[in-house]
């Protein structure tokens, strides 16, 4: 993993390497909420608040510093921007009110538009999740999981199901998941129209 560090505390910015502003400007112009990262003071709260911190290649803080450092390739090909699960922990805690979640999603969309691809796993989950939304207007947890597991092939799918069995039982027990299939929301057709339109505008769809 690459080490990303801010300018050394107390130093004058290291070896005199000039920061290239062009990628930062590209982000401010093209990424939803991209300009908000100007407010970031590099405190690291978002990084440590993220429940996926162990899975991310770069923390949100590092992503923002990489943008400022002109590291276009590293940012747009990072897994971090694709992994964000919208838990909002970072956004509620950020002392500078940077809408970290929104920036992460904005970056993910921008990366996709630029032809970057998420990892196969992430993409598969995204497709199944999106398929559920499109069909039902809501998420049917067991349906998404089933489709995602089986998307790995039958043998692997069954293995994944067994591995996650206890979590499923737990969710049933705490009424976080129903045994019967979820029904579509009222007027799901209008929702689909909206989603189609958003997709046509380049603001939605499965990753």
């Amino acid at each position, binding site marked *: 993993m690459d*080490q*990303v*560090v*801010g300018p*050394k*505390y107390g130093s004058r910015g290291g070896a005199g390497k000039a920061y290239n502003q062009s990628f930062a400007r590209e982000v401010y112009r093209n990424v939803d909420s991209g300009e908000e990262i100007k407010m970031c*003071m*590099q*405190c*690291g*709260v*978002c*990084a*440590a*608040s993220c429940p996926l*911190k162990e899975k991310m290649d770069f*923390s949100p*803080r*590092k992503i923002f510093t990489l943008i400022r450092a002109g590291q276009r390739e590293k940012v747009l090909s990072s897994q971090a921007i694709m992994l964000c699960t919208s838990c909002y922990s970072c956004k*509620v*805690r*950020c*002392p*500078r*009110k940077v809408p970290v979640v929104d920036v992460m999603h904005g970056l993910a969309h921008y990366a996709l538009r630029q032809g970057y691809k998420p990892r196969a796993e992430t993409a598969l989950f995204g497709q199944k999740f999106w398929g559920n939304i499109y069909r039902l207007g809501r998420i049917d947890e067991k349906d998404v999981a089933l489709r995602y597991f089986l998307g790995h092939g039958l043998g692997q799918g069954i293995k994944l199901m067994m591995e996650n069995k206890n979590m499923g039982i737990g969710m049933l027990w705490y009424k976080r998941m129903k045994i019967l299939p979820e029904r579509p929301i009222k007027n799901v057709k209008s929702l689909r129209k909206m989603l189609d339109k958003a997709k046509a505008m380049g603001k939605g769809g499965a990753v």
Partner: protein
Amino acid sequence: MGDKKSILIVGGGMSGLTSAIEAAEVGFDVVIVEKNPYLGGRVAQLYQYFPKLCPPNCGLEINFKRTKSSPRISFYTLAEVEQISGEEGNYQVTIKTKPRFINDQCTGCNKCAEVCPVERSNDFNYGLDKTKAAYLPYAMAFPMQYVIDGSVCHGKACAKCVEVCNYQAIDLEMQPETITLNVGAIVWAAGWNPYDAVKLENYGFGQYANVITNVMMERLCADNGPTQGKILRPSDQKEVEKVAFIQCAGSRDENHLAYCSGICCLASLKQSTYVREKNPNAQAFIYFIDIRAQGKLEDFFVKVKQDEKLSLVKSKIALITEDPATKNLILEGEDTQSGERIRETVDMVVLATGMEPATATVKVPAEVAYDDYGFIVSDQDQKGIYGAGCIKRPADVAGVVQDATGAALRAIQSVVRR
């Protein structure tokens, strides 16, 4: 200057005392109104002063002595301003005092406290211990006079203290009083309150016993504090070996106080020296966004950071959790210099909370301009009522003393102009 009106000083902390003494020593009459039963304000609760690391009591003592010896200074304790009317040069002020229940015959013998059956949380020590309902706020209190907390005292039904007092100092029927004054100028020096750390949900203050605040740390280290100066952590009274200070706890944070309080970095640096002085084997960690030690106070920072058992870590801590078995605390953050994740376990956490102006909660009962955070704005056009000290901006004692001297001059001008 006998025909000149007096100056009212609200708040008897370092700022209020300074304004009062400066004005009195050039010949003006002043009246101090202080809501606590003692003068001195928050400074009385400190263990040592940065940058010299001397006890704040010597400075306070000098001010108390000057206050006592000046015939021009009078003061009310347990008093607050209720109403102000009039204008520069001629204000009518209504002051409400709470009963102290003990008069100035009190010699400080402690007999009343010995027999008193009721306990109360000790606000002077930020709730870290208890006193009796009849108590002396602290050992060097000025005035040196006991006080009875009317909100918990059993009153005449008990009156045990009345029986044992040899000086007829106790009067359980003392009533609140209303006093009206006519003054020419008002200096508002009501100071600051520590930001309420309960609001910092991710830090667990109030929930985890060993998460305390910087003001509590001063009391924990003070010889006249709840632990006689030993740093014993609240959960099990164990001597601490690993202490973490968390900077900007609720400061420079748009969800809490958006501004920097300026002194908390220095206070934590100072408190890290307390830890090291009291237990040479102990380790201290200071987690910061950046260290703000301005002007000549940078020398203090440079000196303190040489201690190899002090780690300065550039990271704002995101989350504190408690290990339920040991009551130790686990800190999580990201070291923004190395890029590495932080997961550190310590005995005790000190939150470096900032200063909120008293006027963020209780406004001056008159027309006064405030900024977005409730600090009094020093407005050249605003004449007659002047802020002094931390009511205007967060500052250290040297800073408030300068400011309060300036406020005294402006108040004198208001009195003389008329």
